[in-house]
């Protein structure tokens, strides 16, 4: 562990000739990239908040997101489907942590299994999202179309669906690219690339990205479905 080996003082850490954070540059870049990406998502969500604050009424999410696959017509089950999606993502994050840890222990098989589970989780999440989008689209919701009235029964602007599709779409795009990255990691693991390198640091970076996707969902989920 990095913390145990870091018995050095601050001045020595920053004295040059080494990383002051005990991390290789790739991980550093990944962290700062994620910060940058956090600002992208932040800007989206804050824009959403700004528009919501500048509008008199807003649709009630519980009247919009209230169905789930194979449900009967006109079922009223708010929050059910989205909580399933949330748990799928949390669980896939857990398997990713296990994959990273297995990588640190140099256990190839465990890495591969956990990566596969993570990929399945990611695909499951994407399928859920696809179903939800399709369902909403059938109800007449899309970019520029909003069939849902405000909570107080007045006419709503289209910005509710505009933001919903844009932000969940952007998040879904991140999940998708995360799945692609994980598939690449899986292939690299199975072809022994990391064994040859002697370390699984790439998995760690892919893991950071995957957790970030989960992190963003925490915010998206709260902003769109709960409040």
């Amino acid at each position, binding site marked *: *562990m*990095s913390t*145990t*080996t*870091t018995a050095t003082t601050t*001045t020595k850490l*920053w*004295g*040059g*000739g*080494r*990383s*002051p*954070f*005990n*991390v*290789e*540059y*790739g991980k*550093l*870049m990944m962290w*700062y*990239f994620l*910060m*940058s*990406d956090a*600002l*992208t*998502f*932040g*800007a*989206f969500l804050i*824009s959403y908040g*700004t*528009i919501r604050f*500048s*509008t008199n009424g807003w649709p009630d999410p519980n009247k919009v997101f209230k169905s789930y696959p194979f449900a009967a017509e006109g079922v009223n089950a708010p929050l059910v489907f989205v909580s399933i999606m949330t748990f799928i993502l949390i669980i896939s994050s857990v398997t990713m942590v296990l994959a990273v840890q297995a990588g*640190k222990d*140099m256990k190839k098989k465990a890495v591969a299994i956990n990566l596969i589970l993570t990929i399945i989780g990611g695909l499951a999440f994407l399928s859920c999202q696809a179903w939800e989008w399709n369902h909403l689209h059938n109800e007449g919701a899309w*970019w*520029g*179309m909003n069939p849902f009235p405000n909570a107080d029964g007045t006419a*709503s*602007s*289209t*910005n509710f669906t*505009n*933001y919903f599709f*844009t932000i969940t779409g*952007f998040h879904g795009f991140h999940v998708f690219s995360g799945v692609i990255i994980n598939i690449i990691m899986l292939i690299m693991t199975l072809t022994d690339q990391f064994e040859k390198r*002697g*370390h699984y*640091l790439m998995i760690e970076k892919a893991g950071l990205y995957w957790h970030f996707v989960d992190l963003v969902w925490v915010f998206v989920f709260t902003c769109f479905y709960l409040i």
Partner: protein
Amino acid sequence: MSNEAVLHTHSGAHDGHGDHSHEHHHETFITKYVFSQDHKMIAKQFLITGMVWAVLGGLMSVLFRLQLGYPDQSFPWLEDILGKWAKGGHITPEAYYALVTTHGTVLVFFVLTAGLSGTFANFLIPLQIGARDMASPFMNMLSYWFFFIAGLVMLCSVFVETGPFSGGWTAYPPLSALGDASPGSKTGMDLWLISMALFVVSSLLGGLNYIATVLNMRTKGMSMTRLPLTIWALFFTAVLGVLSFPVLFSGFILLIFDRNFGTSFYLSDIFVNGVGALPNEGGSAILYQHLFWFLGHPEVYIILLPAMGMVSEIMSVNSRKPIFGYMAMIGSLFAIAILAFLVWAHHMFVTGLNPFLGSVFVLLTLLIAVPSAIKVFNWLTTLWRGNIRFTPGMLFAIGFVSLFISGGLTGIWLGNSALNIHLHDTYFVIAHFHIVMGVASMFGMFAGIYHWFPKMYGRFMNNTLAYIHFWVTIAGAYMIFWPMHYEGLAGMPRRYYDYSIWESFKQFQGLNQFISLVAMIVFAAQFLFLFNFFYSVFKGRKVTTQNPWESNTLEWTTPIHPGHGNWVGEIPEVHRWAYDYGKDGVDFIPQTTPVGADESHH
């Protein structure tokens, strides 16, 4: 296994690679000059691309100055080169707005962001911190090529049927969001957005690399407080870019949706002539302005900070004195970097921004005067009683300080929301930001080029041409932008096509003509520089010593023509800060010299 163990094997491998780099690098023309991964070559690519864009952007300003200075005259040759955009030798209003917009975009993003920090961050960071290359040379290469493609797309937009985007470089909706709003808002705007998106990617790739390199790849002994101020400035620049460009990116994505997918993020209550009332409801055009300026304000510091850093370094070297207040310089850079994010709405005082919120932004904005003043006084005290060598680089550095003071002071006026009611969108603003951000950073860039040219190409540039270039440019810059203050105070708005039809602004006809004339002369003078640059690359006087400026920093310990990997053999170790000039009676002590037993403390 610990992280650190991995690190050591990793960096060990890296060093080993560097040592033998001269033997097993079979470079072809393509890998050496085109898809190069050598930071020095990438820097030169950025520089030359930036120069091409500077010429194009400058030419645009000459064209629209022609319209402003001589609104009644016709220039048949304009029709020859611009075709339908200059019917009868008159630049059309559409072309005028397109020229203004493209001039702004190109100069701000392609020249002063990519051309300036792209060039010098790439060139100086590895050389001055003692690294063989950037943390990720491959991403560095990608950064350049994304920038290059962004430029190509922008160039294409100039040639489309409906013309390039013409709603101002800030691209405010609804003009930018509605294709029906103006000819330039059609394909031109799509290409503009694509180009800018690519540019954001480029700057992100570059910025992450610069940050990781400065943090992780410093040579032994190069602690953060021994870094030259150039590196500090470029580091903060990269941080600003990484944190602010994504917000612009989000803003652009929303804009793309508004343009193409019927959303109304920025649109509400709009009536377009010939189209009628639009169905879009509920959006807010101010939201775009918030998002844009959340990048836009840090962007002006992204432009300015590298110039500040280079000026600090060049000034210290050529005054033969340590930089005055090294820690204060870092502190003020840091303060500027923080404040850069807190003041964006001072660009929006009269947009309908909440006045109370505006007053908070006034306070924060005026705070910027503090670190800026610290920097100015530190530069002046560095010059004070120095043993000044007036090299061209030094002249441009001093010119930078002069311009930064003149332009910065008017910023205090503009930062007041009450004064802003009168001054907003007038030529006063044009004068302010051109002096403090545009020309000043351009001077920083010239200073950097003249100073580091010997390191880049192993030759000197011609001094006589450089002196002429300097004096024409600084005199011209003041002659162009100083009168604009008066025009602005008189209320003359920016972005108008023809002032001669306005009773209140007719009086400035002569002044406008004078400004246009000087602008043309200054533009012509830049060709002296270009000739000097390209001539000197091939035919300039050769550098014969490793350290022609007798400078302390690490880049001058490399061979005159450093190969990929920069140092032959071991990377030197650093024992002191970069500013030991005139210490204990010694003219200069390079950073690689160990601290002697009888040396005084600074």
